């Protein structure tokens, strides 16, 4: 039977929704026992949140002041110390998981499968390669421990209502001092998180300036949406790095995605093609974004966006 350990992602107080999506991935394996490990300085509240995810049988609290910030070099040996009984170790394919899971895999001398879209059975997994232009089915060795990162855009959050047992684990292992947290400058917290927002509005180079991005923020605030950007817009300095959507940025799957002034390079499309509904607004009728958009509107974004904002404001949406 598969024993799956999921490494919880959190910000020190709140569990990240990516963790409940990893649970959905793990639960696809019939009969899998799912355990969540919470490494934190104070894991209490996060562990309670993890224990309430349906389908989780156990939550392990690993508390240490050194776990106040998620440094892979410190977290990896702690996860390895509890890894013995597990067949699969999973983390989200976020910057947290991408940083940590390969370090764990190497310490365990086992392979990692990145960006898992589906666990078909204990040894067969599907994942995208080449910016999502091909999907490969990977077979791992039967009986070998496997590490993976879960492509969170492929999964819904597992529901709540669970009542897993929470256990505190005390580890007596040395942690390295060679890696030290200095600071985190977070993006704006008054808007929904890009990776879990149900609505996302993204802008491209056609916005022309950081100043012009403000019309997107205004519309986003009206819709309760997160704001993203194409790589071109980020490279041009119109938007912050953490707003980039695409192959090398964030892969998202909102209910509604509105691409504004984005032509739709393949690397961008790979980051949005799991969105439920895609709207494209672009002055170039030939832009590739229209090939995958459910609704396209050709025209000047500087006229369309304010008008769209007026119409949704009027309706109180």
């Amino acid at each position: 039977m598969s024993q799956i350990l999921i490494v919880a992602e959190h910000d020190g107080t709140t569990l990240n929704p990516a963790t409940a999506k990893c649970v959905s991935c793990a639960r696809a394996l019939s009969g899998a026992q799912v355990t969540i490990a919470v490494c934190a300085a104070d894991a209490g509240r996060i562990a309670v949140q993890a224990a309430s995810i349906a389908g989780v049988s156990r939550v392990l609290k690993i508390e240490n002041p050194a776990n106040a910030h998620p440094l892979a070099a410190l977290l990896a040996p702690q996860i390895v110390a509890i890894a013995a009984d597990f067949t699969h170790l999973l983390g989200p394919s976020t910057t947290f998981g991408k940083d940590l899971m390969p370090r764990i895999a190497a310490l365990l001398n086992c392979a990692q499968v990145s960006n898992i879209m589906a666990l078909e059975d204990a040894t067969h997994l599907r994942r995208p390669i080449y910016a999502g232009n091909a999907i490969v089915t990977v077979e791992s060795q039967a009986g070998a421990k496997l590490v993976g990162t879960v492509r969170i855009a492929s999964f819904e959050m597992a529901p709540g209502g669970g009542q897993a047992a929470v256990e505190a684990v005390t580890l007596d292992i040395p942690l390295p001092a060679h890696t030290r947290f200095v600071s985190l400058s977070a993006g704006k917290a008054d808007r929904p998180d890009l990776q879990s927002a149900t609505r996302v509005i993204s802008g491209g180079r056609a916005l022309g300036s950081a100043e012009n991005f403000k019309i997107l923020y205004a519309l986003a605030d009206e819709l309760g949406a997160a704001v993203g950007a194409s790589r071109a817009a980020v490279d041009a300095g119109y938007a912050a790095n953490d707003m980039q959507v695409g192959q090398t940025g964030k892969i998202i799957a909102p209910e509604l995605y509105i691409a504004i002034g984005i032509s739709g390079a393949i690397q961008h499309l790979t980051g949005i093609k799991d969105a439920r509904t895609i709207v494209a607004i672009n002055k170039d009728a030939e832009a590739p974004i229209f090939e995958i958009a459910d609704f396209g509107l050709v025209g000047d974004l500087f006229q369309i966006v304010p008008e769209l904002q007026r119409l949704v404001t009027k309706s109180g949406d």
Partner: protein
Amino acid sequence: MKRILVGIKRVVDANVRIRVKSDGTGVETDGVKMAINPFDEIALEEALRIKERGMADEVVVATIGVADAQQQLRTALAMGADRALHVRSDTGVEPLTAANVFMKLIAREEPLLVILGKQAIDDDNSQTGPMLAALWNRPQATFASKIELNEGTARVTREVDAGLETIEIDLPAVVTTDLRLNEPRYVKLPDIMKAKKKPLDTLTLAELGVEPRPQLKSVRFEPPAQRQKGVLVKDVAELVGELRKRGVLS
């Protein structure tokens, strides 16, 4: 000698439209344009800038790959790397094997810093950097957008989902690059000529004492599910109407 070791990978050029072979055994790579993985180009550029600031003496570039991967090493030498190491492998190696190869190169070269791309744009694995740091038992700073080298330590700003995180690491260490770290230079023709004279050593996995141990098998390749092309609406009112009909706007 303060040395920086840079890993590069030969990949299908980012502008090539990838097609899955009709028999599902792989993707079509015959005759397509190949290039240095873009993130690795950024890694090399950063190493060259560190050397140009006088913070390093030598930049060594290494790759694991087929005979033709020497083309990418020559490009790297033309960009400014001092020496190149080609570890021959006619089959792709898994990230853990790649990390084991780099461990052997580290033992030979004793670098102050190893810089790799955060991911290769073919397999999109994003594994080799952290795996190498783990085997080496040294710090890792992934997704770097700024590297500040000091005596014995480095301060690295990382592009994380929540924003920009800064960490301090002791050297030697592994850094992986993100897009905004720098903009790689263009190669000039005289540099291509000069690069032909720079040393390029070829090694084999056997010579390095690394046995590739594949643990994963790719059993089937498929094209991704295609989205249906939608409709063009004539104005904003129609758009809002359609979105309401779908229930995505109330």
